[in-house]
């Protein structure tokens, strides 16, 4: 049971930072940016590259995160700002194209073979039958700290209030003298950094590989939509729900139904479970589970 909770928590951590950034940015620019998960992939490769040229791991992670933020901002200013003038549908298709270009670039530069960080093997921590490796523990802890900081930022600072105001009613916010451009750019940078950090921390245990972004695409979007796009904390709750579902489905033993001792759903079909939930949510609560919060500041 404890291992179940640990696994669900780990999976939430996998998704949380990336989903948070995606949802936050959606609140301001109002289009689902498919390339967002590829920023995470780029972050993973940047961290790997920086680490392998000799930078200490923490420095590599932070630097990769900052570089990913800059990349995100650059793409936003050069591509999406222009595409958005033609509407969100065009921008979304554009983001699909950007996503493919990013994957192709990484594939060309780093190849399709996954790159593992060279870290010494350490024994995992064991408590009450559950196991968690130290890297994973750091990952979860960092995610929790960042989420807490984000809550403080969003609800207890001027900038946070400005962000919420802008997300809620851009015209009114503009009329009230908020600098929409600067806030949007700031949020873009932060969401890119979060994606970069999320991706590179994920890569610590799974390696930097070119499918990292695509593997995240479906669960991250499911979590963000479930939480209500534009509602950052709802997105984190969505991630938790997706993680719980995935972990539950992984662990259900269908054996007794078919007269076998153990029979599990093949892991490659498990993401279908989160989609079932997403589909139900879209049918019955199209603005996500926390729609009231989405519609007001």
């Amino acid at each position: 049971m404890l291992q179940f909770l640990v696994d669900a928590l780990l999976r939430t951590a996998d998704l949380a930072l990336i989903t948070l950034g995606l949802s936050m940015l959606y609140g301001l620019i109002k289009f689902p940016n498919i390339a967002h998960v590829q920023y995470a992939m780029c972050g993973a490769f940047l961290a790997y590259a920086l680490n392998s040229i000799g930078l200490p791991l923490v420095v590599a992670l932070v630097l990769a995160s900052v570089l990913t933020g800059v990349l995100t901002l650059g793409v936003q200013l050069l591509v999406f700002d222009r595409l958005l003038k033609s509407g969100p549908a065009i921008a979304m298709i554009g983001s699909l194209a950007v996503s493919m270009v990013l994957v192709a670039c990484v594939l060309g530069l780093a190849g399709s073979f996954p790159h593992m960080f060279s870290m010494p093997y350490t024994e995992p921590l064991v408590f009450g039958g559950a196991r968690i490796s130290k890297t994973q523990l750091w990952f979860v802890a960092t995610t929790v700290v960042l989420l807490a900081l984000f809550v403080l930022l969003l609800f207890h600072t001027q900038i946070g209030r400005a962000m919420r105001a802008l997300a809620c009613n851009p015209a009114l916010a503009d009329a009230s003298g908020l600098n929409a451009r600067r806030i949007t750019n700031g949020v873009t940078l932060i969401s890119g950094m979060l994606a970069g950090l999320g991706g590179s921390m994920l890569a610590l245990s799974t390696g930097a590989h070119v499918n990292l972004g695509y593997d995240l695409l479906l669960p991250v979007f499911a979590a963000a939509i479930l939480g209500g796009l534009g509602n950052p904390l709802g997105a984190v709750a969505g991630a938790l729900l997706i993680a719980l579902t995935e972990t539950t489905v992984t662990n259900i033993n269908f054996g007794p139904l078919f007269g076998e001792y153990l029979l599990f759903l093949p892991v490659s079909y498990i993401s279908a479970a989160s989609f079932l939930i997403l589909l139900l949510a879209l049918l019955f609560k199209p603005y996500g589970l926390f729609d009231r919060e989405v519609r007001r500041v």
Partner: protein
Amino acid sequence: MKKRNFLKLAAGTLLVSGIFSTAWAQDTISIGAVLPLTGPSATVGEDIRRGIELGVEHVNANGGVLGKKLNVIIEDSGNNPTSALTAARKLATVDKVPAVMGEYSSSITLPMAQYLVKENVVHLNIGSSSNKIRELGPSAFNIIGLEENGNRFAAKDVYDLGHRNIALIAPNNAYGQGVAHGFKEEFEKLGGKVTAQVLYTGGQSTYRRELQQLARANPDAFLYTAYGHESAVINREGKELGLRNVPWYAYIMSMSVSDTPAEIAEGQIGMELGSPTGELGKKYEEAFKAKHSEGFKTAFNGYGYDGVLLMAAAIEKGKGTSPAEIVAGLKAAGAEGFTGVTGEIKFDDEGQRIDPPYDRLKYEGGKLVLR
């Protein structure tokens, strides 16, 4: 003027090379081989090529075949079925060889061999393990252990080690399905039980969930077969999840430890296709090291070497180089038994090696040793 000179030169070259190649054809006997010399299996392909090269050298040093020199034309498949077919077609129609050896991956060997058999060219399998190799037809022969043999060997070995409840993980492709299905069948015949089984999707960066599903079976031991990098992930995550506290048995072991850090692989046990053995095998290993200035990379080179020597013996026995004569020669050599570096080669009625060799291995002190 210049142009005319060039034409003269070109014509001259053509003429000379024509004469030369006819002369070459008259005192050499050529057979073909298709190997993955580039692509993901290039290490194995190059290893087999080295075995073949040494085989040709030894045959020719001992007087060649039917008084002529033996030559093996080697083509690259690039690990691609279409290129392999093109290569086989070139060997059969341009070089007009009577026999072709190769490839390595079953999914490439099968279509290629089907084409060769249809074109009435002899095929000798030296690298693939699918059970379908057996069904290729009357002019196809095989000197390497197929899945059915491997499954029987592994099942008996695991049973003899005292394990009764096995959890099994294998790649979700023709090979992995064959192993999973065949091992289970053989193991349950002996009285053991495969309590959980997972076929994993290749190329993933984590197999944590698959392993956790397997762990629910509380097995006595895990049996796994996986390709280099996937093995590395499975080995590491298995260790992190504490699953490697019970024994892990590697099926075709060299690929299961090739990319894994030594501290995780230490103590790992498993099985592998038989490496060169006995007095002959030792001599071969020395000659191999002397020629290529490094040792064996895989267990496959010995089969390339034996393939060449068996072909030479078959041509001698069949007293000719037509496909029909080679088939007769192979049947004769396979009936009385041919001693190669991988052990004695005898064929059953379907041209398949009887009791192909396997080794019991252990990973100790950073390398694979016999156990």
